């Protein structure tokens, strides 16, 4: 039980959003301060670099948006990284080996991710198996499927309209837009995030999500279809992981079965740094976006300054704790 349970909702939320931004601002300041610079201008602030940052986090960010919903209902999804890998493989295989068009391929992969998520949701919501273990198993299953589907090696995507070549349209995912400035993945991430924020603010479904995380019994007594909502949320998480996987394939021009491992932890970190309580019921996508940006900036500046990689691990760990510490006002899970 902590103080904020007693702050009026709005104030509290405002405060929290401020908090997660606060951490981000600190890291940004540090980034600018420590950035190496050319002719007096910090490399970090060059538009190119900033767009590299957002591109680097767009996949984690998209996953983290889905993860936010899952954590809001008091659940967790450890399978997203593996699902990303599976989706990347899927896109590559469908486009290259099976010669599908971009749209059909994308739809098939998204559907697969959705179904995978729904199945996990059913296992945890209907059969009452703890989400942690369900999705941990889901991770292994997805990884295994990806390796089997790809034959164990990354599937290279080369473009063209010959056989064994993917439609050039798909290569857009690797490109930048708005006269070469903004990377497409960042655009997709932005769209997903904005949509999710709006959805969480305005939809009844979102109210049910918060209610389930806050007091599941109360939600049930109020006639909320608890099980259905839970299952759908896991479905959403799977869907977004698949979307991230498609982007991943486009970015790297290949679908490799082992990609995305460990992404789930980054995504969860982003969500928590963003001020969402793992106990569920409280949090926001805007916070998650801030959290993802914080991580992205952190990685970028550590790479820019060329700190010793092992020391980087230390710094990252400590910064993450500190950033999460800014959230300590909210209920501890």
């Amino acid at each position, binding site marked *: 039980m902590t103080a904020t349970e007693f702050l009026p909702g709005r104030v509290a939320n405002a405060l929290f959003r401020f908090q997660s931004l606060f951490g981000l601002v600190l890291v940004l300041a540090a980034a600018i301060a420590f950035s*190496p610079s*050319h002719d007096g201008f910090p*490399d*970090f602030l*060059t538009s*190119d*670099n900033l767009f*590299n940052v957002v*591109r*680097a986090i767009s996949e984690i960010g998209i996953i983290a948006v889905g993860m936010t919903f899952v954590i809001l209902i008091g659940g967790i999804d450890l399978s997203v990284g593996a699902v990303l890998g599976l989706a990347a493989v899927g896109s590559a295989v469908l486009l290259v080996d099976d010669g599908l068009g971009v749209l059909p391929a994308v739809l098939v992969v998204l559907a697969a991710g959705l179904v995978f998520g729904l199945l996990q949701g059913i296992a945890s919501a209907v059969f009452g198996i703890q989400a942690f273990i369900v999705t941990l198993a889901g991770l292994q299953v997805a990884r295994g499927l990806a*390796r089997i589907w790809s034959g*164990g*090696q*990354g*599937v*290279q995507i*080369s473009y063209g309209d010959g056989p064994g070549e993917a439609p050039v349209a798909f290569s857009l995912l*690797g490109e*930048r837009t708005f006269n070469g400035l903004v*990377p497409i993945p960042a655009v997709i991430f932005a769209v997903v995030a904005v949509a999710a924020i709006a959805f969480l603010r305005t939809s009844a479904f979102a109210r049910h999500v918060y209610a389930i995380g806050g007091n599941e019994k109360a939600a049930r007594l109020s006639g909320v279809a608890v099980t259905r909502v839970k299952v759908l949320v896991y479905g959403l998480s799977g869907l977004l992981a698949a979307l991230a996987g498609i982007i*991943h394939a486009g*970015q*790297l*021009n*290949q679908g*490799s079965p*082992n*990609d*995305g*491992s460990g992404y789930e932890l980054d995504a969860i970190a982003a969500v928590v740094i963003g001020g969402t309580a793992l106990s569920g019921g409280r949090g926001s996508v805007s916070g998650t976006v801030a959290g993802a940006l914080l991580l992205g900036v952190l*990685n*970028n500046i550590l*790479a*820019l*300054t*060329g700190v010793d*990689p*092992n020391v980087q691990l230390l710094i990252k760990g400590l910064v993450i704790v500190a950033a999460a510490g800014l959230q300590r006002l909210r209920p501890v899970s």
Partner: protein
Amino acid sequence: GTTHENSGQGASTSAPACKGKDGKYTIGVSQANLGEPYRKQMDDDIARAAKQYPQFTVEFADAQQDNAKQVADVENFLTRRIDLLVISPNEATPLTAVVKKAYDKGIPVLVLDRKVDGDAYTQWIGADNVDIGRQAGQYLADEILPRGGKIAEIRGLAGSTPAKERQDGFAKGIEGRGIDIVTTVDADWLREKAQQQADAIFKAHPEIQAVYAQNDPMAEGAYLAAKAAGLDQKVKFLGIDGLPIPPGGIKAVEAGRLAATFVYPTGGREAVASAKSILLDCARPPKTQLLPTQLVTRANAAEVYAKANR
């Protein structure tokens, strides 16, 4: 490490192992992990080569980069009384004891890529990471930056042996050639990590003229980052491994994404060949079989690829 007075030596003069041409044999392959394309390729090479010998059934184990699991994998192979062990150790010392155990049981042991300590094995097949690193360094110094220059190095997984050896060798190769490694980053052998790291590198050091990546996937990742930064024409990329598969380095060189790569042979085929001579011909192969590496440039890429897949 410790050198054993190898009691196993006598046993492994393939007396029990060799049942001749019409015997049936189970070969256990203990692979360090299937995450790295190179190692998956090794398994595939072994599987393909073994097809020629109906006497062989090959079974694979994946240690998932876990020394302890690989020990268990070998133990399990012993339980199942395999006739020959092919192992590509995750790391040398941790696997030494269990490999010796197998060897002392009279099971021929073929060690691929990474040696174990001591000499309690039948044959080691592999290339020399230090040497390949050195060749890469020399090629860079001779062909790409004869007048010296600034480069970036992308390392594999910190704490893994090849990462260290390929780094040391490379350092030797460029010694005194006026080549300055302005930054070294870790990308854990992964294309995705390399891309992100390289994003930052090109930002912090736009003057960089070449990138030495300790494997091809990382070189490709760096190339993608350079492309995004519009530097793909200016900067040259060196990789290692040169796998003869579509996503492999040879194709990347052929397509001009990488300036060069160095074939780091998996030794899969050679392992099966040795297995044949041990099990079917009751012969005694030499203790070590050092595999040659090969420089792959745009000039010879196509033919190397074809040859490898013949």
